[in-house]
Structures are given as C-alpha cells and as structure tokens.
C-alpha cells in the first residue's frame, strides 16, 4: 500500500539548535502513529514541519505520493493540525473561529463568499455537542474563554472538514481528564474512518492506549520505533531517556493509587488556576507556587512508591511461586501417598482372613481418606488453579465460579468476553486472584444471593472486570484505608493488585443496593482468536 505521508531524512534547525535531525517515517491511511519523547526532544518541531509551518532545512515530505514544496497549505491537502496551544482569532466569536478558513456561505467564491451564520452556528453546535462542550452563546468572543475551552474549539475546528491526516501535538496539557479521554476516543473514531493520525504526547498511557506504532525521539533524532502491541513501557521509556538503568526508570514508569489521587488534586488546582487567571494576576503567582510545591511532593511520593511497588511486586511473585510449589508438593507427594495407602488398605480388606466387622471399619477409613484427598485437591486448586496454566483464565474462572456457587449456595452469573484469548501469566493470575478475593468478600460481608462477574474488552488493550452483587453494599462513611486497621484486607488486596497492574479501580454502591467493583486493566494486545471458543 502507498503511504499517505512519507518523509525522507527530514531535518530542521533553529539557528544553531537542531530540533529535528534526519527523521524518515511513513504513515499509512487509518494508522495511528505516536510520537514519544521527553520535553525538548523535537516532537513539536517535527509536528510543525509535517504540518508545513516550518520549512525543513533538509529532506523531503511526500503526501499521497506528491512531493510538497514548503511552506505548503496543509489544510488544502486535507491535513488538520491540533496544536499544543490553540491559535485562535481572539476577537472573533466561537463559530467564526471553528469555521475560520472554511466558512459555509454563498456564492462559492474564495474571497467573496458571504458567510451563512445560521448554518455555521448549527454545525458548530453539532460538533461541540459531539465533544461534550457547552457554551452559553456561540457569539462569545474566544478571548473570554478558558484555555481548556479554547483548546476544545481548536479540536472542533479540525473536525469541521473531512481530513486525510490529523496531526495532534500534545493538546492534552490544557485539557482535563474527561476531555483527554474524549480526545482518545475521537482518535479511535478517526482511525476507524481511515484517517491517519500522528499523535505526539507526553503521556505514555495515552500513546499505549490508541496508537498502532510509537516512534521515539531523543534530541531530535528518531531513536526507536515499536509496534505498540509488542512494546513494553520499560523499552519505550528507556529509549526516551536514553538509559537502561532500572533505578532511573522506575520513578518514571510506575505510579500508585495515591499518585493518581495527587495528580487529580493537581488537576483540580490547575483548573481553578485557569478560572482565577483571568481576574487575579497576583493569585496566579501564588497558585503556580502551590502547583510547583505539589509537583515536588508528587515526585517525592512517586519515588517512594516506586520502591514500595517493586518490593510488593516481588513479594506477590514469590507468593505465587511458593503457592505453586506448595500445590505441586501436596498434589505430587501427599495425595499420591494417601492414594497408595488407600490401595494398601483395599488389598488388606480383600484378604479372606479379615472379619466383616474389620472390613466395615476399613471401608470407613478408606472413605475418609478419599474425602481427605478431595479436600486436599480443593486446597491445591485454591493455591494454584490447575486449569489456568493449561486452559487459560476463562476456563479457570468458569470452573472456579461454578465450584464456588456450589459450595456457598450464592448464584454466580459469569459473563466472559468471547475473544478473551491468552494473556500474560502475571495478568491472568492477578485477575483470577481479584475474582477470588472479590467473591470471598461477597461471601463474608455482603449477605447477597447472587453475584454477577463480567470480564470484557473495552478496547483492544483494556479489560474491564466488574463484580456486582445484590447484597448490602458499602457502608456510608466507607474508607479504604481504615479497613486494614480493622483487619479486613479483601478490598485492599484488590486495590493493590489493580494498582500494580497499572489499572484503575472504582468501588461504588449500585442503585438497587449492592456493591459494584470495577477494575480497568491494561494489557498487551492479544492475538484475535475465533469467537465461541
């Protein structure tokens, strides 16, 4: 297939500072290519060159097989750009900005078109609704809006015309969490429509969630390229910072729940800063100080957490190893020994010299040995689900829940993704343990009569695990941290496991009563398997 965009040996320098050096890349229709790199690695400069705003000092850009002469009019070719900071016409209103350069109007002459305000307003309202942005009036001048609102207008501008290539230069800095997610789902929409996307971002989570390929830049050079499915975070970060030293990497990669909470705090603070920014200049400086302090605290917290997480991960791995070992020991040794004792007893019982009274006793003993073996098998199963290694997570969950329902008398409805496939061992085990702990929590505290367990893909690289029951739910003044003080480790264990997988956990009471546990877990993309397996 012909690449949509191809660059050959692209270089751009500003004075003596070279921002991009010899970058050659290809982008195909319907492909999402991520640009990763630390700040100052040349992501923005490369985006600008690709968008035709800076002419490269060296190298060529081909779009749809044609060589572009710089500076070219990107929009006329079907290239839309979303910048880090939105470039809007300050004194124009919202819909004029959204349609700037592509006004709807009559006659269809380039310059003498008379804009049709009503239709432009309608279209703008439609797109803004898609983006979940609301304004009191589309006649508001953009100079009066917050940076987040302005960035969303810039995104709306890129959506107004059908584009072949959309270049996104990390606009998420100005966006809150929900709009960041919105942008990610937009990228997936574009990809499905066959639009190519170049997505440069500082947020590795974002890149891993939506891209097909990730190109890593360091000091303006293209240092590595990974298919996202096969890439590991460590590899990417190592390429970004140019070191393989684990000590340096861990603080960058891993983050615990509390870290996310701190991030959220920073986010809120930043939002209020945007609000204050407009009227209070003095307050602004203070806020920035606060944010700086918060950022420092987060960094400190982060490195402390990294060490803690490392330790805990090791602990969990060793625990699983130990259990596996123990299970094998019991299964291979104790159970086999018991079975052979059983045979011996049977042989003894078969002897004709044995009285019938003794025979009955022997039968009793053999029955209790058989029950003992059954119990031991059950313990083995709990220590290491036998099916998980051979048949996978789905089978293990089915057999476990079935067994559990039989034992506890609580109905379990299991709903598995048809294309679950095989996941890495650590993830399969963790999910299995989370279900185990979740169910045992239901049995101990919920007083429920039914449980719904579902495991579904929300995107090719994200699994959503939910465990819902119809019991009494969480107490009103529920506090996760306080539970451990009371000696309840069930929910805490789940939250730790989810955090170690880099996922997100949500605990909430359902409308009809009962607790809903939702865990979103990211994993490497699995190969497509035939449905109904």
């Amino acid at each position, binding site marked *: 297939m012909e690449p949509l965009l191809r660059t050959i040996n692209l270089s751009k320098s500003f004075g003596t500072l070279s921002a991009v050096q010899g970058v050659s890349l290809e982008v195909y229709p319907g492909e999402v290519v991520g640009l990763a790199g630390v700040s100052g690695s040349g992501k923005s400069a490369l985006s600008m060159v690709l968008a035709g705003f800076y002419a490269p000092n060296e190298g060529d850009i081909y779009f749809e097989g044609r060589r572009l002469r710089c500076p070219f009019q990107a*929009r006329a070719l079907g290239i839309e750009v979303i910048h880090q900071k939105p470039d809007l016409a300050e004194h124009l209103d919202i819909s004029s900005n959204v349609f700037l350069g592509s006004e709807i109007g009559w006659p269809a002459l380039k310059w003498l078109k008379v804009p049709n305000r009503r239709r432009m307003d309608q279209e703008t309202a439609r797109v803004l609704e898609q983006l979940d942005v609301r304004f009191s009036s589309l006649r508001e001048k953009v100079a009066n809006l917050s940076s987040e609102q302005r960035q969303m207008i810039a995104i709306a501008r890129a959506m107004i015309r059908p584009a072949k290539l959309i270049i996104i230069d990390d606009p998420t800095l100005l966006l809150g969490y929900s709009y960041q997610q919105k942008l990610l789902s937009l990228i997936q929409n574009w990809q499905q429509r066959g639009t190519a996307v170049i997505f440069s971002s500082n947020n590795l989570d974002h890149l891993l969630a939506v891209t097909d390929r990730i190109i890593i830049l360091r000091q303006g050079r293209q240092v590595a390229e990974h298919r996202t499915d096969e890439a590991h975070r460590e590899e990417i970060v190592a390429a970004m910072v140019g070191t393989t030293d684990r000590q340096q990497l861990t603080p960058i990669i891993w983050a615990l729940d509390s870290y996310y909470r701190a991030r959220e705090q920073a986010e809120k603070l930043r939002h209020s800063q945007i609000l204050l920014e407009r009227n209070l200049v003095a307050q602004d400086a203070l806020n920035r100080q606060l944010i700086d302090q918060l950022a420092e605290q987060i960094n400190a917290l982060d490195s402390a957490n990294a060490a803690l997480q490392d330790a805990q991960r090791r602990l969990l791995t060793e625990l699983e190893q130990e259990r596996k070992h123990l299970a094998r020991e019991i299964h291979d040794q104790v159970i086999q020994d018991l079975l052979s004792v059983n045979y011996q007893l049977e042989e003894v019982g078969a002897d004709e010299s044995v009285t019938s009274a003794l025979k009955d006793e022997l039968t009793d003993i053999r029955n209790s040995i058989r029950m003992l073996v059954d119990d031991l098998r059950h313990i083995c199963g709990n220590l290491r689900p036998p099916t998980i290694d051979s048949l996978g997570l789905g089978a293990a969950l089915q057999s476990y829940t079935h067994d559990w329902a039989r034992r506890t008398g609580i109905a379990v409805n299991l709903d598995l993704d048809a294309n679950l496939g095989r996941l890495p061992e650590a993830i399969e085990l963790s999910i299995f343990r989370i279900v185990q702990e979740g169910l045992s929590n239901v049995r101990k505290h919920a007083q429920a009569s039914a449980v719904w367990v579902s495991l579904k893909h929300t995107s090719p690289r994200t699994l959503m695990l939910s465990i819902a029951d119809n019991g009494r739910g969480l107490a009103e003044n529920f506090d996760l941290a306080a539970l451990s003080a009371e000696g309840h480790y069930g929910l805490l264990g789940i939250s730790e496991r989810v955090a170690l997988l880099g996922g997100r956990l949500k605990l909430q009471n359902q409308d009809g009563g009962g607790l809903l546990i939702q865990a979103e877990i990211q994993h490497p993309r699995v190969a497509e398997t035939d449905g109904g397996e």
Partner: protein
Amino acid sequence: MFPPTEVRFWRGIWRLLLGRHEIVVLVLLLVIGTFLSLRTDTFLTWNNLSNISRAFSWIAIAAFGESMTIIIGGIDLSVGAVMALAGLITARSLEADLPVPFAVAAGLLTGGLVGWVNGTLVGRVGLPPFIVTLGTMSIARGITFGLTGGWPVRNLPPGFRLLGQQDLLLGSLSLPLPFLIMLGLAVLVNLLMGQTVLGNYIYTLANSERALLTSGVNVVQIKTLVYTLCGVLTAMGGLLMTARLGVAAPMAAIGYELDIIAAAVIGGTSLFGGEGSVLGVLLGAAVMLMLRNGLVLLGLSAYWQTAVMGTMILAFILLDHWRRQIR
C-alpha cells in the same frame, strides 16, 4: 459606593461617544461646519460646498484603500504619487487617441500595478510596509517627472473631463458626478469589508495572523490583494482629480498621502490594525476637506495648514490609544 446619578449619566454619555467613533467624528464635523458658517459668508454657499465635495470625493476614495492597508496592520505612503502617476498615464493614453474607457483602464491598471508591487514586497518578501511604500512613492513620483519632463499635460478631451466636472440632476438636487462615484464605491467597499469572508480576514489579520495561517488562509495573497486594491482605488481618485482639474501635472497630489492617512485615522481606523469602518473614513475625509477649506476661507496662511493637519492626526491617534487602554 455608587457615584451619584449625574456623574454616572455623564460617564455613560462619555462611554457611548468613545464607543462609537463615527459619532465623535460627526459631532466634530457639525461643530466645524457651524463655526465656519458663522464666521465666513462664503462657506455655506452651494458653489463652495459643491467644490469641497469634488475634492472630498477623490480623497475619500483613496482613503478607503488606505484604511484597508492600515486595518491589516500596514500603511501605504505611495498614494499621493500613485494618484499623480495614474492621472498622467491616462492623460498620455488620451493624447495617443485611445478611447476614454481604455485610457481609464490604463490608469487604474497603473495604480493596481504599483499596489501589487507594494503588496508583493510586504506580503511575500516580508519587508516593512513603511519603507516599501516610501520607496514606491519616490519611484512613482520620479516616473511622472521623467515622463513629462516637468511639464503638465493639457488639452484633455471633454469626454474625459466630464468624469470630474459633470453634475447629475437627482430630482431638484444637482450632485457632482465624482461624489456619486465615491458613494457607489463606498457601498461596494462597505459590502466587501462587512459581509464577505475576505473582509473578515482583513479585520482579523493584524491581531491574529497565526490563527489565519493555521486555518489554512493564504495570508500572503490577502496582503497582496489589499495593497493592489488600495492602488486601484487610489488611481480612481487620481483619475477623478485629473478630470476635474483638466490637467495632469507632475506636481499634482504632492503631500496628499498625509491628507489621506489623516482622513483614515480621523475616521477611526486604528493604526494598531484591526479596526476601522467605511462610514468613519467617509466622515474623516469630510472633516479633513472642510478644515482645509475653512483654513483658506479664514485667511490662514497655507504654510500653517500642514501643521494643523499633523496636529489633527496626532490628536486622533492619541484618542485611539486612550480608548484601547480603557478597554
């Protein structure tokens, strides 16, 4: 603590006046008009007013073009010289027995060409407009001197002189043709600036050039187009002037760039770019011409007139500056 009602009332009036610049100019126009009518016998005569309106027309037409260059954040100093050059080229064409429409077209084309050179150097090459147009001003003026050897071209055919000297009867009112042409152009330019996307881009250019660039609007083309349009409009003014005077003199329209810029600035065109209206420029040109005429009628020496004009320009730039600070 609210200020007393009376203070608030006056503050409101003040704000209204400052907000609508056209009102400020209109009031100024009425004040000067009333003053001159009272102080002189000759001002308020049909003949004098009709004479003012002819000269006013060509200044206003050129000022429409000038205000467009100022709104995009530039300036055009070559307007006076272009008026003289366009008039001369037309006169020379008429001398060569070209029919009037072709001669007029040649004059307009000349203006457009100078404007295009200005626009290309400013827009495509990126030179500062002040220097570029100062250069083309000398070039255009030099060409007029060179072509004529310093002597004016006389004996223009009556078919051409009609353009500047004819009156049209509208009911009982007899209006000079240049004035009507000016009104027609005012409507056209107003439509262009107020209704079309081009007008929208022109107002946006000075303050948000990057937004236009990132939206894929060809900014270089807009700049070239605006300077070219300014050249054509200025040439139109030059033709009406030549037709009115009946002679194409190399010394004609010297110093008009000051009058034209003054008309635009007094009319509320902001030298910071992005603001200005056709109605304002029209009123500004009227104030200019009335002032010039009045100074003559009052018997003030012509030597002092430029000083008064310069003061006017500075006063209005100051007003614009203060208004920006209040906002």
